[in-house]
């Protein structure tokens, strides 16, 4: 009995130390900020990069990141114009593959979204607007809707790309039609709970986030040009903010809320922006904007008083000081996505280089890097870190690297 207890304690201790038991159930981590709650990760890598634990090379085409539960990895991919959700075990072995719907192939062909897991159900979207709820055990479909045929939405220039938000008993999606702009559905049945008209614009590519306040919860997302704040109780539009300029249609990065401030980076629009949210969440006030920081779809990280974001026109990353809102530095590491874990930044650029950076008071410093040489097509996917493993999707391949100490 005593031995069993000791063993259990030892296991518990080891699990705690290694961070075992973490889950990544949605786009860019637990709070959709790109920050992964990991500890005990390597602070530098060998010259050839961290050890590759395994590769699964038959995902189908796509850019969506994986989500990771205690037993499984879920990720979607396009095979011959059809989107499938794949379930792998934690060693990269395929468990099942389930058809979701037709996928976008007009440009950048492949699955675009990251699935969202809640309990024993998983929610997936395709580039042609199919939103399906499947069972995590089997991939069996519970229900599905189509944002074009059911809600009169129309796909944006690069196809529907939203990684849907699931909260409580609801799933939220953005068909982007004039009247049926944002929709809350019962996540168990797919039945409509409310419809928001938003600004009546077609949808953009943003995965929404939630601001939780004592008075209300607010869904924050983008339509074609407008940042939208929607009361999650009834779908009423609390506020919106339109990007300046012509030809704006590509809002991708998930906004970030922290201590009554809301941050956005819109390369196709006003660049980096900071807003003050009123106490009751009913109003936003622009504090600053800086259109030099023109990150398009690589996400951004706020660390200390800095925003780190990939650029677009200039192939580099930007460092934006968040009090005054000016670009204070740049990181010459091409352009791409950025995440954070255990106090370090992970920059994965479009040339396939993964860089480990140490943030500081000035510009983050490159500590180690390696080139992702396996996989196919563009290096657009956002990396994920879970339980000491760095997951990188490169087209048809999912690569798992050991980054725990």
């Amino acid at each position: 009995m005593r031995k069993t207890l000791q063993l259990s304690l030892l296991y518990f201790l080891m699990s705690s130390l290694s961070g075992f038991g973490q889950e990544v159930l949605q786009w860019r981590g637990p709070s959709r900020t790109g920050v992964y709650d990991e500890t005990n990760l390597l602070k530098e890598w060998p010259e050839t990069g961290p050890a590759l634990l395994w590769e699964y090379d038959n995902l189908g085409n796509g850019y969506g990141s994986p989500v990771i539960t205690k037993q499984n990895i879920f990720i979607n991919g396009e095979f011959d114009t059809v989107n499938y959700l794949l379930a792998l075990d934690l060693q990269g072995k395929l468990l099942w593959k389930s058809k979701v719907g037709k996928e976008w192939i007009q440009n950048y062909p492949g699955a675009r979204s990251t699935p969202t897991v809640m309990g024993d159900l998983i929610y997936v979207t395709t580039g042609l607007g199919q939103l399906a709820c499947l069972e995590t055990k089997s991939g069996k479909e519970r229900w599905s809707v189509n944002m074009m045929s059911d809600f009169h939405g129309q796909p944006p220039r690069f196809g529907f790309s939203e990684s849907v938000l699931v909260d409580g008993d609801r799933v939220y999606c953005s068909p982007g039609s004039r009247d049926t702009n944002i929709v809350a559905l019962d996540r168990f049945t797919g039945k409509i709970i409310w419809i928001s008209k938003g600004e009546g614009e077609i949808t953009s590519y943003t995965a929404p986030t939630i601001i939780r306040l004592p008075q209300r919860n607010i869904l924050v997302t983008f339509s074609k040009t407008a940042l939208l704040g929607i009361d999650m109780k009834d779908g009423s539009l609390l506020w919106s903010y339109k990007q300046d300029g012509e030809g704006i249609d590509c809002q991708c990065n998930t906004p970030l809320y922290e201590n009554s401030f809301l941050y956005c980076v819109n390369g196709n629009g006003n660049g980096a922006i900071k807003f003050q949210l009123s106490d009751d969440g009913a109003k936003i006030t622009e504090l600053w904007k800086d259109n030099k920081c023109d990150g398009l779809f690589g996400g951004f990280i706020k660390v200390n008083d800095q925003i780190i974001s990939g650029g677009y026109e200039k192939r580099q990353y930007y460092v934006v000081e968040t009090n005054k809102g000016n670009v204070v530095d740049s990181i010459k590491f091409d352009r791409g996505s950025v995440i954070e874990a255990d106090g370090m930044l992970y920059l994965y650029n479009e040339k396939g280089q993964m860089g480990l950076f140490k943030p500081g008071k000035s510009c983050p410093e490159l500590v180690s890097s390696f080139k992702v040489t396996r996989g196919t097509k563009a290096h657009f996917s956002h990396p994920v870190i879970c339980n000491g493993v760095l997951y990188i999707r490169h087209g048809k391949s999912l690569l798992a690297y050991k980054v725990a100490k």
Partner: protein
Amino acid sequence: MKKPLSLLITLFVIGSFAMAQEPTLDEILAKHYKAAGYDKLLKTKSIIMSGTMIQQDAMPVKIIRMRPDLYYMEFDVQDITAYQGYDGQTAWMTAPWTGNPKPQAMPEDRAKDMRTKADFDGLLYQWKEKGHLVELAGRDTVGTTLAYKLKITKKDGGTEYLFIDPSRFIILKRLYFRNIRGKDVPVENYFHDYKAVNGIPFAFTQDTYFGGQPYNSLQIENIELDQPIDSKIFSMPVK
């Protein structure tokens, strides 16, 4: 008065000496062949180059060249793979982003450029035998270098220029013209980052300007020589 005169004479002598030192075309070409590793290149049967093409996105690219004058390139636009090839007779391409994924013959102006690119040893080597005319057209600046400017009147009637580094005798720049709606638009290729592979120097970076504007950058990451290649890839696919 005496001083300015002697200065003039000195300048004249230096100038005449410099003129006398200006090499002939044959001397430039001889040094170029040596610098470009022709002794090894002429024994090389195939070249496979892979890397990244940076235009709007950074997309993978692969170029395969094989004797005699065969050329194949696969590259991605909007993450859709396109192909170009030349089998010694037909220059072909696919352009799937136009909605037509089928292989098609290249328009003649692009086919001309393809034939030039397919010349395994380059335009300058045995130019007389190939029916081209090469002339030394003085010097011109490429960046900060006063390079030798060679004018090539090709057998097909096209004109292009190659600019050769006067100290290293490698090609720094190629200037040619594409006819766009009746107008000749200059296309400039700048070659950087020369590194030797099996004793042959290759430019690992090639920046292209189209009509004076930056167009793309080809960044080569790997070059393999004399790998086995199925020659079928150079011919236009039937389907």
